[in-house]
């Protein structure tokens, strides 16, 4: 199972390089951080809790093979009508896309067209996406949360000292690196207008920094830094910021999520709107990733404690 998870992580990274080869830099950034980073980490945590071996199936899956081959053949037959790879006159390039490409600089003034489409032209879809992440965080909390008594200072100090000698080099190096990782997350967040980046990637990188701290210094020490009620509140606040920007636009006379009415100059209004909602998105994504990892770890500790009691 361990090899399966590692290969899945490598597959995520290789598909990120596919995306770079096809000029999709924002997507490659997200896929690399999410598919090769967080996804591998969560699967490793699950494998650690469910065991590394699987027992082999007793029957040969011939029916599955047959269904797969037939479906594949039908799909290949269906592709003969599709436009060729890279053709500039495919239907996809002729309707809305020219307006997004050529007018987004005039209407919104943000060089990264993906950010302008994501945050302004299709802002409602992004709202739904933030809500989906928030719901996943709530779901994981509902499934995996454990009532915890916070450990006393003395116990945390004792755990820290016992781990210090064994992991000295890693601790020193990672302690130096974590501020830079968090700084990079902020850079990606606020630079999403000018280059690849934006709220999602920034949230995932921020969460990765915190998770690294938790891996090296213990879950209880990390919980002292990032308190559970605070991070749960922050994940909701991110969605709230997004919705409030939309409501404020309605109160100012525009439609929901129309940023042009947020300030006297429409372009400045667009910039302000995009900044605020990307901030909300980054906040929610970072908090939800931290919640998911902390819940999995806490569950693992709880399982080990129960096994220790029953023995």
């Amino acid at each position, binding site marked *: 199972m361990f090899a*399966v998870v590692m290969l899945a992580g490598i597959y995520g990274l290789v598909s990120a390089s596919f995306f770079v080869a096809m000029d999709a830099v924002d997507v490659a950034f997200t896929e690399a951080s999410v598919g090769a980073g967080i996804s591998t980490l969560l699967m490793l945590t699950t494998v650690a809790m469910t065991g590394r071996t699987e027992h082999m199936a007793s029957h040969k899956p011939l029916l599955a093979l047959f269904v797969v081959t037939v479906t594949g053949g039908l799909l290949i037959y269906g592709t003969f009508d599709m436009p060729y*790879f890279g053709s500039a006159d495919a239907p996809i390039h002729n309707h809305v896309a020219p307006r997004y490409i050529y007018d987004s600089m005039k209407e919104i003034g943000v060089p990264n067209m993906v950010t302008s489409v994501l945050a302004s032209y299709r802002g409602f879809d992004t709202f739904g996406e933030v809500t989906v992440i928030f719901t996943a965080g709530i779901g994981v909390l509902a499934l995996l949360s454990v009532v915890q008594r916070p450990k006393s200072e003395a116990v945390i100090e004792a755990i820290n000292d016992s781990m210090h000698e064994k992991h000295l080099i890693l601790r020193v190096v990672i302690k130096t690196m974590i501020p830079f990782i968090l700084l990079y997350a902020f850079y990606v967040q606020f630079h999403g207008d000018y280059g690849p980046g934006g709220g999602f990637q920034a949230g995932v990188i921020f969460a990765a920094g915190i998770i690294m701290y938790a891996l090296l210094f213990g879950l209880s020490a990390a919980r002292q830094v990032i308190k559970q009620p605070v991070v749960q509140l922050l994940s909701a606040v991110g969605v709230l910021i997004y919705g409030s920007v939309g409501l404020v636009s309605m109160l100012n006379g525009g439609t929901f999520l129309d940023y042009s009415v947020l300030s006297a100059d429409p372009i400045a209004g667009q910039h302000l709107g995009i900044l605020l909602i990307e901030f909300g998105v980054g906040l929610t994504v970072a908090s939800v990733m931290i919640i998911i990892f902390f819940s999995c770890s806490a569950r693992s500790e709880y399982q080990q404690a129960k096994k220790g009691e029953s023995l």
Partner: protein
Amino acid sequence: MTTILGLYNYWIVIVLMMIGFYIIIAHGHLIKKIVGLNIFQTSVFIFYISVGKVEGATAPIWQEGIILYSNPLPHVLILTAIVVGIATTALGLALIIRIKEAYGSVDEDDIQAMDNQDMVNQDKEQQQC
């Protein structure tokens, strides 16, 4: 390429999609099913992004003097899709952890056998009452 070989990106996507599909329906271990789902999702992403690419164009970030850009619309859709995919994966893995606690195993056949056994026991109890 403007011959039939110009469709090779779709064929690669279909091969990956069928591999993911086969893993989901043929393997019994629940984590392998999630990995198969991941492969399926990634193949759909590659499909959308490859449809949006224009030959000789550059990434959709506005720069002085460049006229031809790749289509940004599929990029936006796939950005959303990747994040929704990770949310689904996280929730699926949380469910697997709870299933392991409740049933003791994460193999589909074992879980099915235990459920059938529970139903048989329930029927027996009802007959006795």
